[in-house]
């Protein structure tokens, strides 16, 4: 066999192969480590600071121990509710347009591109823009402006996921609806959307989870509030914003609260992400065949 000229490099090649495998494993370990470290630390620090008072009390003045972030939790709830009422309808409608009516048209491509642009806008820039659009004219910070900022940030995610989910509905479903003599727009809404609804809902959840943790757009729109507030026209507290303020403060008590808040926030987000993964991996369109 004249394989000798080929044999000389064989050892080196094998060594290189093993080396690369080791490097890849090391890289993986290096990635997994901070993640695990962060989670463990969060749970450890957060759990020890978490108590009932956290959920029921508002912050106490500096120097007084105790207190909680009840106002921030409520504030986040209000902000996210407002955000969803803006982001979800516009996003879903946009997604429906892209998937059903504008498919392949230049306009649809422009819309999709614009949604991607919106997605890439840094959240702090969004805050600046909303400040200019709403806070400045109104001459005061408000929950409303914060909610609008978050709502706009939800649009691209909801829009894209809705489009993807609708595109996954098999053509047969649409044809069946049309065959029943239903005019196009009704068939879309009632049948296709219903078929894709689990996926669409998870898309909304994903967008929700993403903006739930956003701080930057709120710094000069919702501003934050040390007190209990439910008004849309006043500054309002939000969980991530409160965490930020407390984290950079010099007070140990507030640091404690920041960890607790972070734990609550991360649990909510992990739940949302896990749920999304569960639904999409199980096969979203169960009734579609």
């Amino acid at each position, binding site marked *: 066999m004249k394989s000798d000229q080929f044999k000389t490099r064989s050892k080196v090649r094998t060594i290189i192969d093993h080396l690369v495998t080791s490097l890849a494993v090391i890289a993986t370990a290096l990635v997994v480590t901070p993640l695990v470290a962060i989670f463990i630390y969060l749970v450890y620090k957060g759990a020890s600071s978490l108590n009932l008072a956290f959920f029921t009390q508002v912050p106490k003045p500096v120097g007084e121990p105790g207190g909680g972030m009840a106002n921030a939790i409520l504030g986040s709830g209000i902000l996210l509710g407002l955000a969803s009422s803006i982001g979800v309808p516009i996003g879903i409608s946009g997604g429906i347009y892209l998937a059903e009516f504008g498919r392949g048209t230049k306009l649809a491509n422009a*819309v999709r591109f614009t949604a991607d642009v919106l997605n*890439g806008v840094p959240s702090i820039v969004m805050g600046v823009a909303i400040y200019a659009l709403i806070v400045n004219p109104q001459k005061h910070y408000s929950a409303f402006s914060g909610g609008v900022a978050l709502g706009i940030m939800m649009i691209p995610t909801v829009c894209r996921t809705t489009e993807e989910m609708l595109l996954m509905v098999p053509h047969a479903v649409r044809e069946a609806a049309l065959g029943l003599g239903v005019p196009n727009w009704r068939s879309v809404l009632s049948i296709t959307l219903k078929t894709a609804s689990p996926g669409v809902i998870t898309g909304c959840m994903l967008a929700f989870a993403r903006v739930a943790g956003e*701080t930057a757009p709120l710094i000069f729109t919702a501003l934050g509030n040390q007190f209990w507030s439910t008004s849309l026209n006043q500054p309002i507290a939000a969980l991530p914003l409160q965490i930020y303020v407390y984290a950079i403060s010099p007070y140990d008590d507030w*640091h404690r609260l920041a960890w607790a808040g*972070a734990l609550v*926030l991360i649990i909510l987000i*992990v739940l949302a992400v896990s749920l999304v993964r569960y639904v999409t991996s199980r096969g979203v369109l169960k009734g579609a065949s």
Partner: protein
Amino acid sequence: MVLCAFSIFGIVILIAWQLILRSQLAWDKFGMSFFYQVFTDSYTQQKLYWDPVNEHFSALPFVFGTLVSSFLALLLAVPLAVGLAIFLTEMCPRALRGPLAFLTELLAAIPSVIYGLWAVFVLVPLLREHVNPLLIRSLGWTGLFGDDNPTGLGFVAAGVILAIMILPIISSLTREVMTAVPHSQREAVLALGATRWEMIRMAVLRNARIGIVGAIILGLGRALGETMAVTMVIGNSPEIHHSLLANGSTMASVIANEYAEASADMHLSALTEIGLALFIVTIIVNALAQLLVWAVTRGAPRQAH
């Protein structure tokens, strides 16, 4: 329906318009030199960049800070992200793949402020006590690691936390383009008698390289706009030093720190102009990244990981 689609246009146009409008004041006064001018402090004769009191506004330190922290982040994140992607796509036992991919997804979902929180209380002390002294001792000769900032804050801290944050997106996109390489290409290389790494190199990485570059650029886009975690660890000083351990500031962090308190019109306008610059740059970077990734995957619908 179409109305809603148009509202997306409207929103982006409104944002752009407001940003342009509000930065008019600073633009009229400084023009393009806003981004590179250097002032001199009349008392100390030191270089000065950002002095709201005397209406000296130069965005140079923030541009510098954004670039340095982002590229440092890329330097750390890209090898790890690509290594992770290679492991997950080509080497990982099937059983591990799902959990590891899920873990990476979780990394991407952690809010910036929580990264910042962890960075302030865990990463910065770690850097301060152990890593930075080591860097100063071993690499101080390069001039890049000075010892006049013992706080642990600074560009290194920002670079590390940014790296952790952009890693998942680079990795998952790289995985996507690697998976898009047809199996027949892998077989062709194996059939020539290649080792597994040679197959990965020749068939997968080579064919997917454009998309991988796109993934890296997308990571860069994310790093450029990242605000909270960076603000919490970079030290917030509007100065330029050659030491990576020095405090600094980024375009996003200066807006986050000063916007709420700024009262003077020129100050606000200057900050808005920085925001506008950030807006434009991230649009370009993200559009470029999308283009590159699309070129490889041909717009195929996202697969479940």
